């Protein structure tokens, strides 16, 4: 089980309070699909992903991105039990969606880059470290039920 220190929890929570979930979520997922185009293989039902502008403007991408980042909000409330918190979502991504867990790590990394564009110098190395630990832990929790 991942242990987050008091400082790490505080760092994560303080930034989260200022995050625009809609903007960061939709932009992160769009960037994933553009920077790593092979990830589009999991989104056949999302419609037009044929160009960067199509992806950035795609309403299903925006909606799913928002959903993903909202789940981070839930994660932050349960940082001491991420595996339990994400158990159902893990089964879903394995059994129904068949998503390679590597994608969770890739998306987590992109969320950090998008946070850096929004928060600039406030996204300090310590802030980056705490958030990287969180996104890694969420990725692992989402992969936990795979079989």
């Amino acid at each position, binding site marked *: 089980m991942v242990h987050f220190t008091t400082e790490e929890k505080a760092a994560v929570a303080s930034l989260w309070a200022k995050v625009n979930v809609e903007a960061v979520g939709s932009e992160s997922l769009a960037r994933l699909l553009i*920077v790593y185009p092979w990830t589009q293989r999991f989104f056949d039902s999302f419609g037009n992903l044929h160009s960067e502008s199509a992806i950035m403007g795609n309403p299903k991408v925006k909606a799913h991105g928002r959903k993903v980042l909202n789940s981070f909000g839930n994660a932050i409330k349960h940082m001491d039990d991420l595996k339990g918190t994400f158990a159902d979502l893990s089964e879903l991504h394995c059994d129904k969606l068949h998503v390679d867990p590597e994608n969770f790590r890739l998306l987590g990394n992109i969320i950090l880059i998008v946070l*850096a*564009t929004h928060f600039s110098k406030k996204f300090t190395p310590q802030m980056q470290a705490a958030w990287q630990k969180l996104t890694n832990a969420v990725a692992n929790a989402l992969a936990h039920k795979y079989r």
Partner: protein
Amino acid sequence: MLSVQERAHIAQVWDLIAGQEALFGAELLRRLFTVYPSTKVYFRHLGDHPDEVQLLNHGQRMLQAVGVAVQYMDNLRAVLSPLADLHAQVLRVDPTNFPLVIQCFQVVLASHLQGEFTVEMQAAWDKFLTGIAVVLTEKYR
């Protein structure tokens, strides 16, 4: 293979770094060591707690090499050959560490450029830096 647009994005971002290699390099290393402490094993010559001067010096060396790669992005294999030899024979940095440096590099760019670090720039730099990493580890075995 880098497209014309990708090359333009790479050159455009480099214009902002050129002349400040030490500052950007130091920040890259600071973030690398903070977020991924295990990478410090490869920098023991900087000591257990590298100071600002050491980070600036070593950071500058790393970023200057990136600058050379930007200048010769059509011929990375030839121009980075001596560095590839160094990494294969002396440094022997496990290849899994290069994505960590690339991630921190992107965070540095993102925090400096903010909204100007567009998805096109991110895509170009991710591809470019990954290409550098491939060349640097190519001679490992």
